[in-house]
């Protein structure tokens, strides 16, 4: 019962703050709502028994990505607070497509063949950090190495792109 209460709490928080990210007037407020949304998702990961991923979500998303976004917002605002955000005007088709997608999921989610497993029917997996580390260095060692090369490439690219041109 307690798990259900927490699920609806985190899910409601995530959905509400996701809506606020998209509709917030100022981009700075969007970034703060995004941090709240990512924290709620970290709570959901915790509910699902993914303790390692919950910690990673808080450390990398809330700690690093959101602060990076806030830096970019502050560097690109022309004055403090910024101007209220405008949205594209002709977007009536987007909500329509979106609601169609949600309706499709709603009507088919019970018919897709995924068993409606209740969360109390499966034992929580216990601490996942050690098994994830073992899998990363055995089954998934090639993707792991590729990901590290990708990270280095992205860091070098970000530095080169964001650096001021010395000639100018």
């Amino acid at each position, binding site marked *: 019962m307690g798990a259900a209460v927490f699920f609806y709490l985190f899910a409601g928080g995530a959905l509400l703050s996701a809506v606020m990210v998209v509709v917030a007037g100022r981009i700075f407020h969007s970034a703060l709502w995004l941090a709240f949304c990512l924290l709620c998702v970290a709570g959901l990961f915790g509910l699902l028994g993914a303790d390692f991923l919950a910690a990673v979500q808080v450390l990398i998303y809330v700690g690093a990505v959101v602060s990076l976004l806030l830096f970019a917002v502050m560097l690109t605002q022309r004055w403090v607070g910024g101007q209220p955000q405008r949205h594209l005007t002709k977007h009536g088709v987007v909500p329509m497509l979106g609601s169609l997608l949600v309706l499709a999921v709603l009507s088919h989610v019970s018919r897709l063949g995924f068993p409606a497993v209740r969360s109390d029917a499966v034992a929580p997996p216990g601490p996942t950090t050690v098994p994830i580390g073992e899998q990363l260095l055995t089954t998934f060692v090639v993707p792991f190495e590729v990901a590290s090369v990708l990270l280095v490439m*992205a860091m070098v690219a970000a530095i080169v792109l964001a650096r001021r041109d010395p000639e100018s």
Partner: protein
Amino acid sequence: MITLHHYLLLAALLFVIGLYGALTRRNAIGILMAIELMLNAVNINLVAFSRFLPEAGLAGQVFVVFVITVAACEAAVGLALILCIFRTRRTVEADEVNLLKW
């Protein structure tokens, strides 16, 4: 009681909200934020599958680690590009960057 379907529906809703933001935001940083929302929706799906279908093992959670890695790379390079655009064009509005538009 909470089932797999609850998580699938939540992830679908989050994905659609992110899609709406990515398609309608004019600020390029806002578009990046909406993309992060969509990636998070996918992550919720992967973790929920690995929790409720235990015969699949922990592969779903390992996938989430890779998705988070790629998302961090994407944010770093994307924001560097946005800073570049702002330096030369003095704007981050996606529809005002129309230099290549015929």
